[in-house]
């Protein structure tokens, strides 16, 4: 059973426009939500996170929104740049218990010139 779901395997966005990546979760015990970015043949790298007590966190061109009632979060990238082309993983971790991240399946973002 997937506790973190990314229903879009891929997303194509024009350079300079906004990229919106979506993620849904089912486990109410998740306390922090994170986005990781992954290039081919490399490990995931941390991008941005949000605590369950917030609904928005912003870092430069990246903003993550959390809607707890809908169990939904999204990552906005604006403006999108060619270097943003990568696979983006949504991840979550509960407040207590095991320390491992629960990942979604990833969304391949392609920024077109």
């Amino acid at each position, binding site marked *: 059973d997937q506790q973190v779901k990314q229903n879009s395997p891929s997303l194509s966005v024009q350079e300079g426009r906004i990229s919106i990546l979506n993620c849904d979760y089912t486990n109410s015990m998740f306390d922090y939500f994170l986005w990781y970015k992954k290039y081919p043949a490399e490990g995931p790298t941390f991008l941005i996170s949000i605590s369950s007590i917030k609904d928005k966190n912003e870092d430069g061109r990246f903003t993550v929104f959390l809607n707890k009632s809908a169990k939904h979060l999204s990552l906005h990238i604006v403006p999108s740049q060619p270097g943003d082309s990568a696979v983006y993983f949504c991840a979550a*971790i509960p407040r207590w218990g095991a320390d491992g991240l*629960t990942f979604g399946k990833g969304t391949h973002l392609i920024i077109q010139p």
Partner: protein
Amino acid sequence: DTAVSQTPKYLVTQMGNDKSIKCEQNLGHDTMYWYKQDSKKFLKIMFSYNNKELIINETVPNRFSPKSPDKAHLNLHINSLELGDSAVYFCASSQGRAEGEQYFGPGTRLTVT
């Protein structure tokens, strides 16, 4: 300066063999992890470990065993390799739970023939 390193990067071996993958982190973190990314691209936690506790994902076969000679290393030993073990294995580290922010190695692609 590589923060989390893994060796080897590629590993091709036959069914039934025993192999190890090494992981080292120079970040001074106290918690390390192993993740498996299967052919469907799911990234799943296998183990989390600090100097106090090893937490094993219940779905991991006991042919897999993590070994930590010291705080900076967490090696993954696999006995009696099976075809289904073919995957990319990622090591990661963090300082405590770190609200989920983990640093990943580049991955080891294991192919079992």
